[in-house]
């Protein structure tokens, strides 16, 4: 069996008393959309931060494209082709949409002209083509999410980790952004999504891991995972799985 694109093995991380990652292992296959779900505070963002070099795991290892990247800097990891976005979007405020995206493009393109051209091309792809000269801070929340996607795309990545790109969007905006994410995958870029909204993940991803209190509690195809009693309890509290099952029986 060929090695997965991203191989996370036995990651542990504690903050003071909080165990943010408990022995987490997962392997992200090439060319697919997969996802990591879990209630708020489960440790999803912390796991992303460790994978992308922003935090150092206490123990465990991370391999990307067959090489060990544990402890590498975020810059180096980005150069290798893995890019993360942020749950709390971080536009370069005061700079135009074009300039924002060009920062990503400059990872592979030295010339200013080339990077600006690339920025324009990517902006069109994500639906920001008519916002190029607008100040990034004047974008709506949905616009900023698109900008995060565009900046990541402009770096020509092999794998993008999206941290809650759909959070904070209303249903119609979510419907607009989902095709953008699909289009990223269709370009051959592998995607790992974090979401705490399960519905969105269901339609997008082929495989999902569920994190709760720092540890993986389930994994599999989304439709199986969401009916897993452990997952229901993690989201809705103890005893909920039984009650739902009882109600379903009563309905039948």
């Amino acid at each position, binding site marked *: 069996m060929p090695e997965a694109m991203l191989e996370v093995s036995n990651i542990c991380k504690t903050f003071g008393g909080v165990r943010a990652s408990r022995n987490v292992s997962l392997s992200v296959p090439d060319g697919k959309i997969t996802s990591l779900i879990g209630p708020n505070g489960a440790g999803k963002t912390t796991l992303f931060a460790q994978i992308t070099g*922003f935090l150092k795991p206490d123990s465990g290892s991370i391999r990307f494209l067959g090489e060990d990247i544990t402890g590498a800097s*975020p810059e180096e990891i980005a150069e290798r082709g893995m890019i993360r976005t942020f749950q709390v979007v971080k536009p*370069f405020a005061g700079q135009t949409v074009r300039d924002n995206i060009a*920062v*990503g493009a*400059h*990872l592979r393109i030295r010339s*200013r002209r080339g990077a600006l051209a690339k920025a324009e091309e990517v902006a069109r792809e994500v639906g920001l083509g008519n916002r190029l000269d607008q100040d990034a801070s004047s974008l709506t929340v949905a616009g900023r999410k698109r900008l995060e996607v565009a*900046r990541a795309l402009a770096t020509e990545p092999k794998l993008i980790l999206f941290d809650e790109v759909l959070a904070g969007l209303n249903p119609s905006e979510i419907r607009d952004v989902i095709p953008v994410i699909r289009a990223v995958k269709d370009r051959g870029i592998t995607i790992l999504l974090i979401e705490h909204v399960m519905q969105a993940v269901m339609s997008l991803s082929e495989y999902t891991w569920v994190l709760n209190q720092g540890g993986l509690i389930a994994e599999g195809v989304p439709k199986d995972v969401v009916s897993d009693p452990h997952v229901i309890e993690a989201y809705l509290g103890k005893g909920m799985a039984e009650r739902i099952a009882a109600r379903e029986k009563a309905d039948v």
Partner: protein
Amino acid sequence: MRTLIILAAVFAALGLVPFFVVSDVWLNIAIMVLYSALLGQAWNMLGGYGGQFSFGHAAFFGTGAYTVAVLQVQYGINPWIGLFAGGLAAVVVAAIIGYSTFRYGLKGSYFALVTLAFAEVLRILSNSVPITGAGVGLLIPLQVAPSNLQFADKGSYYWLVWAMALCAFAAACWIGNSRFGAQLMAVRDNEDAARALGVRAYSVKLRAIMLSGFFSGLGGVFYAQYFLYLDPHIAYGASVSIESLLVPIIGGIGTLFGPLLGAVVLHAISEVSRDLIGDVPGISLVLYGALLVVMVLFLPRGLAGLLIRRKAAPQNRKKQEAEHA
């Protein structure tokens, strides 16, 4: 491209000043304006484009100034060589300060305080070692000759500082239109987001402080050759550090022409206040302080911010109308 043409036109016009201004008093003011613009642009490279506010640019300025002076006075080395040596020595100091702050992730007021501390340490050192003439200072012997980087006429000094300022402004123009500059501004606006996109934040900041230090060092060299006298307070005191940051803050930080605009305004205010109040010792620092407070409170984006906003407003209105239609 357009900015480059405007920059070339502005400096071409500035280069003609000595042909039209014959009065030594006015020429001296013009020299001091360009000298302030040079120091301001140097600070602007790191503070404006890079968002790293230094309170200790005197560390670079003083090192440039002392290098050219000490080489001449103690070792008899030609000041033209000292000019480059001064710039390079300032780069070395900048690299040391950059390493000891950015490597350890110091930001904001911590960075500002460390730069201030470095300048203070250098001031105390230069006040105690014999090579700099200690507290007495260094007098560069008057030997007027172009080969000696001393000129009989103010016009030549003007062109010297003009050439230095031209280089600094060209460098700033390059920052505004290059990958390096894009990465520097990205680090300024959000370091984490920049790093996630592969920007090597530490290296970018280190290069910015070295570039900034170089031009500040050139400013120091000019000062030494123009006034032919240095002491620890002039070289490493707070005045230079404050002037360096005040000029771009008045004009508009992170903009190409902000430091020039700021230098003109600062000197206009100084001249007027000198006429009104007279030459009271220390008055310039009081004035600088007051100006700084006014700018930070009322015009944080400087005069350039005022101009840009006014220019941008009608465009936005047009765009909004178009969207509504």
